[in-house]
């Protein structure tokens, strides 16, 4: 079974600015999980469309509940493939992105179509679709739900990253509000606290074991 998801997004920049930003969007403050980026194929077709294949390495964290079911030495990185077609005549860009690592566990395929926003010609709209599936016996549904939730949060990050790069290109100081910075700090503190708690638990159980020896 495949889970389908779709949504629309709008960027308040013109199509050409967005297409330019598409190739310059890494790194940005919302892309810390992107480690490497490479073009591995590129060509201009006879009808003047640019086709490219980009290879990305991203960190990939499995949910904590799934760890017992996964191979211990599973790589913490995932390779992602992204094919794209830029057509300046129709002012559209189509991208297809999918993971080539851990695909049996969780496969996420995403298609985006970027084009001029019909209501405001100086804005760009993005139609995003995703297909999420898992072939992991017994856990596929749980993995799909996890994949969908993570996909949705990554869409938010992608859009924020885009806005940041666009603002930077247009010479504005990209706005990272105080509230956002504070929220991130809170999240980080929470993670640290959680990690400390887990560690304390581990130490406590070790201490207990020692007592009984």
């Amino acid at each position: 079974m495949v889970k389908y998801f779709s949504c629309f997004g709008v960027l308040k920049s013109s199509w050409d600015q967005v297409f330019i930003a598409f190739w310059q969007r890494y790194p940005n403050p919302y892309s810390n999980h992107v480690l490497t980026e490479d073009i591995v194929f590129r060509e201009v077709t006879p009808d003047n469309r640019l086709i490219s294949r980009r290879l990305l390495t991203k960190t990939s964290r499995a949910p904590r509940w799934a760890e017992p079911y996964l191979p211990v030495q599973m790589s913490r990185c995932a390779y992602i493939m992204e094919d794209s077609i830029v057509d300046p005549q129709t002012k559209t860009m189509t991208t297809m992105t999918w993971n080539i690592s851990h695909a049996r566990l969780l496969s996420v395929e995403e298609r985006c179509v970027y084009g001029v926003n019909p209501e405001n010609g100086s804005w760009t709209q993005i139609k995003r679709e995703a297909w999420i599936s898992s072939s992991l016996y017994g856990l596929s549904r749980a993995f799909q739900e996890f994949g969908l939730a993570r996909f949705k949060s990554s869409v938010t990050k992608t859009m924020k990253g885009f806005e940041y790069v666009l603002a930077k290109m247009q010479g504005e100081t990209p706005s990272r509000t105080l509230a956002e910075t504070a929220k991130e700090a809170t999240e980080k503190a929470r993670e640290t606290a959680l990690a400390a708690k887990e560690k304390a638990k581990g130490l406590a159980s070790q201490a207990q074991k020692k007592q009984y020896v």
Partner: protein
Amino acid sequence: MNSVGEGCTDLKREYDQCFNRWFAEKFLKGDRSGDPCTEMFKKYQVCVQKAIKDKDIPIDGVEFMGPNKEKPES
């Protein structure tokens, strides 16, 4: 951004810079007067394709826009 091949990052950045300028100033404006980045791209590809092979990354398994089959909107 860094390249997946540790030794290719400089070649990649040089190419990226050339590409970004060509893309914005020529390609998007319909100017087809040749691509000045071809040589840089070739050098960069020699490096990165070797790195991909050394790391066994399966990039050729899927045709272009690969998984883009008509899928059900379930």
